[in-house]
């Protein structure tokens, strides 16, 4: 019995791992029924995989049986792999027992489509209902929305899940057509839109009737697979920006494609996953969400791809030297945020500290500014007088020489695949 359970867990955790979202934050389910768990303060990474990714949720598929044949997916119908399926009870037991030992923040449950969308969604719903109602589990639950499932089922699931997600998979419609002819972006945008409206509606009702249940309180997210199809970074990030705006998404995840198929529409097995590119996309995402950049400032027709050797903030600054140097003793917070080498925390500290007198270089360093990077872009109380203006390319080479760009030792050829 336990051997079979181990086997299932191995298969169904392995099949679920390509979904990279791991976040368990944003929940607000308090443990007020003396049950188990509290997603109010969740967001802890309990361990990290050997590839350095956060493990905070038990991330599994209910089953890897699937009636579809999406080329980029290990669970696709035509793939010759061992199939397995958990029972509802097994998922509940695993979640409860892992949580009790402080292994996890909660459950991330997804599934291949068996029989049809509603049949699958109904099973997922049974798991979350049992956890919440019978086991009084208040930990974090991230549930996949199954494309094509009925609105009643999605709505009910939303009352028990903290987060729901549905993956866009390919950043453009044409990419999706190529690899998953049975799928469309519309199948994704429709439930995203439905859930978004429900979230708004439940919130409105809660204002009037306090006892209105919570609905997907940690919001929705989506994932795009990067590097399986030939999109530019500009196309990817414009899609992301649009989805953030249209569906109020909490997160967009970018998952570098891991070759798992000999299909000639896809990068070969054994080719490197585009990890640096993935990292640059995440940096761009952060700049959009926390640093006040508009996607078009970072990526546009003149610059459709992100630089691989320097980060997108530095690369923007070098293209826009007319905005610099910035006097950090007078500039507005949002201008300071745009300086390479100064992050959100340092920017906030600068604005606080300068009230007590003009800041000097040594103070900036202590506050946490990466001065060797920032110095080309700022003025402070004791900035050395600079005789000549450097060109962007000169600054870039100075900075790279100093940081001995840790990225360059990777093979960058993977990025010129298309």
């Amino acid at each position, binding site marked *: 019995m*336990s051997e079979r*359970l*181990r086997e299932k*867990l*191995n298969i169904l*955790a*392995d099949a*679920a*791992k*390509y979904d990279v979202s791991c976040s368990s934050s944003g929940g607000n389910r*308090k*443990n007020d029924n*003396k*049950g*188990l*768990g*509290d997603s*109010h*303060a969740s967001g*802890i*990474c*309990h*361990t*990290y*995989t*050997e*590839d*350095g*990714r*956060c*493990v905070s949720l*038990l*991330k599994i598929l209910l089953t890897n049986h699937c009636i579809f044949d999406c080329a980029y997916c290990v669970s696709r119908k035509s793939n010759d792999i061992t199939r397995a399926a958990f029972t509802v009870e097994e998922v509940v037991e*695993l979640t409860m*027992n*892992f949580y*009790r*030992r*402080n*292994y996890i923040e909660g459950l991330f449950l997804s599934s291949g489509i068996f029989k049809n969308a509603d049949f699958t969604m109904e099973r997922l719903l049974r798991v979350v209902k049992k956890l919440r109602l019978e086991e*009084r589990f208040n*930990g974090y639950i991230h549930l996949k929305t199954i494309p094509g499932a009925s609105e009643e089922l999605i709505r009910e699931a939303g009352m028990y899940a903290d987060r729901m997600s549905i993956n866009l998979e390919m950043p453009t419609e044409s990419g999706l057509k190529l690899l998953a002819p049975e799928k469309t972006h519309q199948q994704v945008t429709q439930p995203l839109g439905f859930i978004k409206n429900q979230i708004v509606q439940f919130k409105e009702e809660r204002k009037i009737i306090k006892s209105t249940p919570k609905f997907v309180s940690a919001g929705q997210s989506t994932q795009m697979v990067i590097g399986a199809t030939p999109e530019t970074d500009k196309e990817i990030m414009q899609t992301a920006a649009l989805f953030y705006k249209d569906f109020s998404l909490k997160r967009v995840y970018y998952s*570098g494609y*891991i*070759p798992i198929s000999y299909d000639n529409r896809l990068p070969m097995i054994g080719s*490197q*996953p585009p*990890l640096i590119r993935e990292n640059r996309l995440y940096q761009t995402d952060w700049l959009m969400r926390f640093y006040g950049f508009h996607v078009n400032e970072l990526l546009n027709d003149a610059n459709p791809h992100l630089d691989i050797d320097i980060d997108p903030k530095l690369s923007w600054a070098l293209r826009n030297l007319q905005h610099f140097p910035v006097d950090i003793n007078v500039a507005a917070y949002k201008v300071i945020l745009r300086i390479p080498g100064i992050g959100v925390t340092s920017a906030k*500290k600068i604005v*606080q*500290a300068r*009230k*007590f*007198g003009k*800041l000097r270089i040594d*103070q900036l360093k*202590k*506050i946490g500014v990466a001065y060797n990077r920032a110095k080309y872009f700022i003025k402070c109380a004791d900035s050395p007088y600079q005789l000549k203006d450097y060109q962007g390319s000169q600054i870039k080479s100075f900075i790279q020489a100093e940081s001995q760009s840790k990225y360059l030792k990777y093979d960058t050829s993977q990025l010129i695949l298309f």
Partner: protein
Amino acid sequence: MYNYVFDGSFEGLLCAVFNWFERKPGQVKLQTEATFQPDAFMPCLQIVNEREKADRVWRGLQSKLSKASLRKFYCTYLSELEEGYTALFEFACYLFAEGPAIENNYGNPYVLALSKIAKKVEREKHRMEAFIRFQHNADGIFYCGIDPDFNVLPLILTLFKNRYADQQWIIYDLKRDYGLFYDLSKVEEINIDFKQQPKTTGIANPIVSAKENLYALLWKDYFKSTNIQARKNTKLHVQHVPKRYWKYLTEKQFEQDQPEF
């Protein structure tokens, strides 16, 4: 210059601040009894703990500092570092002399030191919240022994109490020899006599419940299965989970023999 010697308690520290304002002795060097080395050339003053004085200083801090700064103050105390005590003392004197505006003056070395030490303590707290692995013992209690760099038990108490409301648990600080015990209604401080029981960090207690080994094994399996070999990045892994914490982690324990079920 004076040597101020206090007993290492929070009360003692606050009394040192009180004393300084009462006597205004100029510059002083604050030390704990544990580390104090008498110096023939420097007069020394032993701080006497008085609850009332400590309370007055604490109320003063509460009225002058934001919640975030008060938390930093407390965390820095829990660091148990000599330089932390000095920073707290100097910070408090600076605050009472200059007024609340200075709390965010990161140009001042003590304001900055508080911020930095508190950050370290918060990080250790966070790591304990993440890396504690309960083991379900035969007596029904979920147990974990830890030896954190700083005295973080008071900081992690609430999180564990809120989460594990329907199970009994013990988190034991082996270094400081005290622990927290939750008995399904309240959390108490306890001392365990380890002469009766083996002293272990994290896991590896032989007296476990029937299903404990199964779930530990399933968790290890999960940890392996969720890894993506093509993305392997050991450097990043070790950066997130420094090796000295591995002893806590069920998923990092590898036995020679697979247990039988």
